[in-house]
Each structure stands twice: as C-alpha cells, then as structure tokens.
C-alpha cells in the first residue's frame, strides 16, 4: 500500500513536470493553443506503472542480496549451470554451431550481412574483454585499434596491392604495436584517468584520419577495397558475402579459443589479480607494467583483425566508422555481458547488434532504449547478463589440471 501511494506521487510529479511539453502545444501559424489532455493521462499511467515495476524489482533485488548473504555459497544461475556442465553445454554448443554454419544458406544476403556485423562485434567484444574484463583497464578508445586494422588493409592495398591474407596478420600486429604505444604512457594511470586518456587517444586517431588528407584521404575515405580473394576465383557479391561470413565465423571461434586459453593461464590469472588489487599483485611478484602491456597489446590485436575484415567486408571505409560511439558500443557489450565472461560477451554482442537491426521501427528511440537497458542491467544485474564463473580445479587421486 505504501508503494502504491509512492508510485501515485511519482506519477503526479511527472504529470506536473511534463505538463508544459506534453500537454500545451502552441500553434504559431494559427495563433492557437492546443490542450492535449490525453497526453497527461498517458504520462500519468506510464510513470505510475514504471515506478511500480521499479519498486517491485528493487524489492526483489534486495531480498535476493539478503538471501545470498545468508546462504554464503554462491548459487549458479540456470544459464551458468547449463554453460558449465558438459552434459548440457555440448549439445547446446553443437546446436548453435550448426545453426551458425547453415545460416547463410537459409537466410538472405542482407541477413547474412547483419550476422557478419554481429560476429565482428563478438570478436571486438572479446578483444576488449581482455583489457577491460580481465585486466580491469577501462579503455574508452578501443575503436582506434579497429581503425588501425581497417586502414592498414585499405592503405597497404591501395599503395602496395597487398592482398587480404597478407594484411590480416600485419593489421593485427600493427594494432598490437599501437596498443603498446598507447599502453606505455598510460600505465601509471588508473580508473577514470585511464578512461579519459584512452578516450583522447581514440579521438586523436580519428582526427588524424579525418584531417591528414595525403595519408588517409580525409573524410571521403577509401573505396574499392577488394574483398578477400578465394584462390583467385571471381566471386559474386552474394558468394563473397557468404565467404566473408564463414571467415568471420572462423575468426570468432579462434578468438573464443584464444581468450579462453589466455583466461586460464598464468598470464590470465595475473590480469585478474591486477584487476582486483594492484598493490597486492605487485607484492606477489607480478610485473604490473609488463602484464598491462600484454593486455593492451593482445586486446588491440583482435581489434586489428576485426578492422581488416571490416574493411574487406564493406569495401569502403572512412573515419565516420570509427567514432567514440563504436568504442561505447563495444564497451557496453563487455559490461552488459559480464566482465570477463566469454558467453556473456557473445550474447551481449548479438543483443546489441541484432536488436537494433530488427527493431528499426523504434529507431528514433534507439538511444533511449539503449541507455535505459544499460541502467536497468547495471542496477539489477551488475555482474552482467551471464556473470563470469571462476574455474574450479579438481584434486584427489587424479591431482592436477582438468
């Protein structure tokens, strides 16, 4: 009952606040004032319902926290259980893989293209996950490395006619070098300072690309970038799309494999420790600089690869593809999915890329929905959609690593 009254108050307050913009409409041409009372009703009902739902969820959340504190041991969520038990996850993964493999034959080129984007973001998300999710370094300029990869292919191809397959490793390597170059000066910084400097770095790269016409052809960008070659065969656009699709699938699988291995290694543990407590980390003998640089370099590498593929896919790039917005989306994928959680990041990448595509009807409200869902996730699932599960090791007669 108390909640009911509170929600009523909230509704009244909102009706009052939005009154001038939602209800009164002044027509300057006819010099009349329209009173749209219905809007007032909508605002009232809407804010009442929202406030009520919010309150309900908050209560549930608080109860949940209390319950968890009482029971002490962490309960795995339903999804986590499915993902960690081989009995369930094997068929699930196989099914997913099968679906991914037949996808381009079941859907149109347009759909396949969207899938390619989504998978590229999986790669980007997992790459940034190394830096942000594992090592805990808040990097807001990740898109710079994506740009490095894309421009590496475009320019090397333009000037030296290097093919896709030659540039793919070069792009990754160049991005890694840029990662280290960015890493060295910002190593001492933490948290928000690091975020601001990396944000600046991302913008600098973009501004250079935009203004250095002789080098990067400025805002007009570079077009006619060739698609990846397939043993010298000529492919139609549809065939090329399918080809790139499989390429990205393989790339995603490699990324998943690599990030998974990194995560469960001496280096991966050092990253996690760095994220948790830098002072204790150094006291345990971990070289902070070296470990952070490894994170920056390895994270950037994937953005470099993704950039090369992106350039080959779109055949045209310009600096507008590499704005801060991109960094923000990739970061949201990592945060939304769950820091350090591979399945979480994959799920979030698909949600973030596919939902806006299929909800074009709401395109005006895209940013609004985007922001609102971020806030909701952060309030109710601060660990992300699929929180990272710490690895369990087995002992006994068969001591050792599982």
């Amino acid at each position: 009952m108390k909640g009911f009254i509170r929600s009523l108050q909230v509704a009244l307050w909102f009706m009052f606040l939005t009154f001038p913009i939602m209800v009164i409409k002044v027509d300057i041409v006819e010099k009349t004032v329209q009173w749209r009372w219905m809007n007032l009703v909508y605002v009232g009902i809407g804010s009442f319902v929202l406030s009520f739902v919010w309150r309900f969820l908050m209560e549930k959340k608080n109860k949940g926290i209390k319950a968890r504190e009482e029971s002490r041991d962490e309960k795995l969520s339903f999804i986590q259980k499915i993902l960690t038990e081989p009995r369930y996850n094997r068929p699930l993964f196989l099914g997913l893989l099968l679906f991914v493999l037949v996808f381009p034959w079941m859907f149109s080129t347009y759909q396949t293209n969207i899938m390619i984007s989504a998978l590229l973001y999986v790669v980007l998300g997992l790459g940034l996950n190394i830096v942000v999710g594992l090592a805990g370094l808040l990097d807001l300029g990740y898109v710079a490395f994506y740009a490095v990869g894309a421009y590496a292919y475009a320019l090397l191809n333009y000037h030296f006619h290097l093919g896709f397959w030659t540039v793919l490793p070069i792009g990754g390597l160049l991005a890694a070098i840029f990662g280290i170059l960015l890493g060295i000066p910002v190593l001492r910084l933490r948290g928000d300072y690091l975020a601001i400097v990396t944000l600046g770095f991302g913008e600098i790269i973009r501004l250079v690309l935009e203004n250095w016409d002789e080098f990067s052809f400025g805002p007009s960008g570079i077009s006619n970038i060739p698609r990846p070659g397939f043993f010298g065969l000529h492919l139609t656009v549809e065939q090329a799309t399918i080809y790139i699709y499989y390429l990205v699938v393989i790339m995603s699988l490699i990324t998943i494999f690599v990030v998974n291995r990194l995560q469960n290694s001496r280096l991966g543990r050092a990253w996690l420790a760095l994220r948790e407590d830098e002072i204790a980390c150094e006291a345990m003998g971990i070289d902070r600089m070296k470990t952070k640089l490894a994170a920056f370099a390895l994270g950037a590498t994937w953005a470099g690869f993704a950039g090369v593929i992106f350039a080959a896919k779109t055949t045209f790039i310009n600096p507008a593809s590499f704005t801060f917005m991109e960094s923000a989306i990739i970061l949201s994928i990592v945060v939304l999915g769950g820091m350090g959680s591979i399945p979480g990041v994959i799920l979030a990448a698909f949600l973030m890329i596919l939902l806006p595509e299929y909800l074009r009807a709401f395109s005006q409200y895209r940013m609004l929905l985007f922001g609102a869902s971020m806030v909701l996730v952060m309030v109710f699932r601060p660990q992300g959609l699929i929180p990272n599960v710490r690895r369990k090791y087995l002992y006994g007669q068969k001591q050792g690593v599982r």
Partner: protein
Amino acid sequence: MLPILEVKDLCMDFGGLRALDHINLEVFSDQIVALIGPNGAGKTTFFNCVTGIYEPTHGDILVLSRDDGQRKRINGLKPNKITELGLARTFQNIRLFPNMTVLENVMIGRHTRTRSWIFGALFRDKKTVQEEQETVEVSYNILKKLQLEKYVNEIASNLPYGAQRRLEIARALAAEPSLLLLDEPAAGMNPKETKQLEELILQIKEQERVSILLIEHDMKLVMNISEMVYVVEYGRLLAKGSPREIKEDERVIKAYLGEDHDA
C-alpha cells in the same frame, strides 16, 4: 653469516613527517624477529619500505637473494623485483583478490616461481602444462598446511575473517620466500585462533625453513615465538633485545607495555 635482511639507518619522510627515523634492523636465517610499538609508530611504513611500496628517503636495505645468495641493495626497487629476491609479505588490512577463488589466490603467489607467458598460454606446450599442474599441486598442498583445503574453490571474500588472514599467509608462502613479513597476522582473532596461529607460525618456520619478521600487538604471541624483538616509537628504535630483555626494559614498559598490556 650475513643476515637475510639488513636495514641500516632507514629514514622515511612523508612531507614534513618523519615516519621512520634511522632504524637499524637485522634478520638472520631461521629467525623469528618481532617488530612492536604503539599504533602509528611506523611499523607498517617499515614493511612498505622493505617491500618496495615506498622508496625510503635515506638509508640502506640489503637483502640476500634467494636464488644466488648475493647481497643486493633494494632501495627503490619495484615490489615485484623484491618478491623475486625472496621477500613475501601479508597486509595489515587484508588484501586478498576478493573475487578469485582461494586456490587461485595461492596460485597467484606462485607467479615468481613460474615462467609461462603468452606463448605458453596459447599453445599449452608440454612445459606449460607441467608448470600449471605443479602450480595447482603446490598451491593445494600449501592450503592443506594452513588448514584451508576445505575452502579451495570458495570465493576468497566469502571466507571467515580468520581464514582470510591465513589465506594471506598461504599466498605469501606460495612464493617460497626466504623471509616472510607478517603485518599483524593475529589482528581481529580470538585467543583460541591466536594460539592456533602461534603454532602455525612455528610450524611454517620449521617446515619451510623461512625466516619471519612479524609485526604484532598480541604480546603473548610475540614473546612466545620471537628470538629478537625490536620496539619502535614515533619512528625511532626504542629498544632491541630478547623477549626477556624487552619485558624488563624500563623504557619499553613506560612507553608501551605498561599502558594497556601487562604481558
């Protein structure tokens, strides 16, 4: 015999505040040395200087390297380098890796004893696999020694307080140090737990052949296990001697023991 740790004329200034004022201290191998003194005396600051978290303003810190037995001056060396030389520590205000499992916390302690890097992580060559296996085994055995094995896969922050303190010691031991620095390990423990800790420390010293430098307020614990006690007050060394000598030292009784401890 050279001491494992020799500190000469150590001074540490924070702006105008002199937190450490010409401190001299030695720890020999197989010794338990205690550092006592009232709150704010500069004990933790001393640890921070020795482990590289602060760079001392003046003086020398000399350490016998664990691996080659050479003596090195470690002033200004990074903490991780000092750990590599064979010093490992715990923190007064527990600094575990809260969201990692108990075992993982100890595995991090093995960092200086293992080598694998990016290549090993990606390709899992034979050496890396072996190293990982060894890391798990050694870490698990250390947990057993500290009676923490029932928590292996628990998240560290879920552990009871006393267990967290022991986990910090386990993590430090995983580095196989020649000198273990414990900053108030019994803080917040009840008398029973403190007694257990006492036995544990003695047992560790015997089994791991490690010297121990101990900061502690619990006089009974200090007097029972240490061979040498250093008393600091206002950053200055007030007295140094065996537990018996310290107990009878007029200045110490006046400055410290007399007030609230009647050990």
